[in-house]
C-alpha cells in the first residue's frame, strides 16, 4: 500500500470528539507529504480558535508514528484557506443529519 494511503487510513482513527467524525471525512486534511522519513501534514480545523486545537493536532502525530518508514511527523495547522463545509464527505454529512 502506498504510504500516503496508509497515512489516510490511520488518520481515519483521529476523531473530532465534539462531532464524532474523523479528520479525513471532515475534510480537515489539506496536504500530505513524506520526505526522508518525515510526514508533513498540512491541515485545518473547523474554526480558528477551536478548543480542540492541540488535542487534534497531537492525535494526528500519534496516529502516524507507528507507520513503517515514518520516523517523524510534522503537523502544521493553517487557516488559509479556511475550512468550509463543502470539504466534508458524504459520510460526514450523513452523520451530521445534513443528508438523509
Amino acid at each position: 500500500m502506498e504510504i500516503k494511503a496508509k497515512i489516510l487510513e490511520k488518520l481515519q482513527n483521529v476523531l473530532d470528539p465534539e462531532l464524532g467524525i474523523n479528520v479525513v471525512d471532515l475534510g480537515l486534511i489539506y496536504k500530505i507529504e513524506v520526505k526522508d522519513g518525515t510526514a508533513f501534514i498540512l491541515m485545518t480545523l473547523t474554526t480558528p480558535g477551536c478548543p480542540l486545537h492541540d488535542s487534534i493536532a497531537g492525535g494526528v502525530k500519534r496516529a502516524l508514528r507507528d507507520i513503517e518508514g515514518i520516523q517523524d511527523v510534522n503537523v502544521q495547522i493553517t487557516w488559509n484557506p479556511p475550512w468550509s463545509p463543502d470539504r466534508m464527505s458524504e459520510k460526514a454529512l450523513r452523520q451530521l443529519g445534513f443528508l438523509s
Partner: protein
Amino acid sequence: MTANHTYETNIRIPFSFIIFGLLAFFLSQILLFLSTRQLSTGEMRLPVVLSAVHLLVIGFALMTAMGAMYQLVPVVFLTPIWNESFAFIQMVVTSLGILSFSISLAFNIQMAIFSGLLLTCGIVMFLWQMFMTLKKQKKRTVITLFVGTALICLLLTIGLGLTLAYHFWSGRQLIDHDLIFKAHILLGFSGWFTLLIFGFSYKMVPMFSLAHHFSMNTARYVYIFYISGLVLTFISFITANDRLLSAGLQLMAVGYGLFAYHMFAILKKRMKKKLDKPFLFALLAIVFGVILHIAAAGFSFQSEIHSRIFSIIIYCYLFGWIVLSIIGYLYKIVPFLWWTHRYSKKIGKEAVPTLKQMINEKWIVMECCLFVASLIGMIAALASSSTGLFYLAQGGMVLFSGLFACTIGSVLLK
C-alpha cells in the same frame, strides 16, 4: 499562514473556579430557601437574601465565568493566558473574598467593606490578567469589543459595590444610595454578564452548531444599540428622568432583539442539524432574555413603575437569562475540560469517547426542565406572594442545584 502554538490552559485553573461555583450555587439556593418566609412578603434587601444573592452572582456566576474565560480566552482570541501561577493566586484571593463577603453581608453588613476590599483585590487581579492577555492579541475582533466592554463594566460594578459597602460602614452616603444600587445591578447584570455572554456566544454558537458562511455585520449594531441603551439607562438613574429610562430600556431591547435575530441567522447556516440538548437550553436562555428586555421596556412606559414588577424582572433576568446560559454552556464546557485532561493524549492511539458520551444527556434534560419549572414557580410565587408556592419552587431550585453539581461531578468519573 500556519500556526503551531499551544492554547491549552492548565485545566486545574478552570476546574478550581467551576467547583467553587457549583458549591456556591448550592449554598445560595439553600439560603434562599431558608429566607422564603421573608421573600414572600416582598422583602428583598434582607442581610441573608443579600448574602445568598451575592453567593449566587459572584460565587457561582462570576467564578464560573472567570473559570470559563481562563479556558476560552486563549482559544477564542488565539492568545495564551498571561500568567497561570497568578491565576491560582487570584482564585484563592477571590474565593476568600467571596466567602468572607457573604458571611459579612449575612451577619455584620457594616463590616462588609473589609471583606469587600479583599474581594475587589481578587477581581482586580482577574481584570489585570485579562488585560495583559488581551493586550497580546494580534488581531482584534468584535468579540474583543464585547468582552473588553464587559470587563470595564465589571470594574465599574465592583467600584459601585464597594461604594455601597462604604455607605453601610460609615453610615453616610457619598452619592445617593439608591442610584448606586440601581447602577450596580445594571452594570453587573446587563453590562458585565450580558455583554460577556453576547461575546462568547459569537464563538460558541457557530462552534457548537458548525455554522459557516454567515455575516458578522449585525454584531456591530447589537453593540451600538445595547451600549447606547446601557449608557442612557445609567444617565436616567443620575437624572431621575423616567423618559430617559424608558428610552434606555427600549434601546437595550432593540440591541438584545438584534442579538437574538443574529443568533437565529447564524443557526440557519448550521451544518449540525441535531443540536446537543445542553446547547438548546443555552439558546432557550436567549428567548427568555428577549421576553425580559421587551417586558422591561414595556413596563417603563407606565407612569408609576411598580418596584415589585421590576424585582420580578430582575429575578427572571438573573435566573432565566444569566444563570440558564451559564448552566447550558457549563454542561458543554466541563466534559470538554475533563476529556482534554483524560483523553487528549490518547486520541489517535486508541478509541476515545466523544464529548457527548462524557455526560448523561437524559439527566441534563430532566434537570433543565426542573430548573425551568422552578423558575416559573418562583415567578408565580413572587407575583402572588404565596409562601407555599415559594417553598415548592425554591425547593425545586435547591434540588436542581444539587443534581446539577452531581451531574457535573459525574463527568469526573468518566
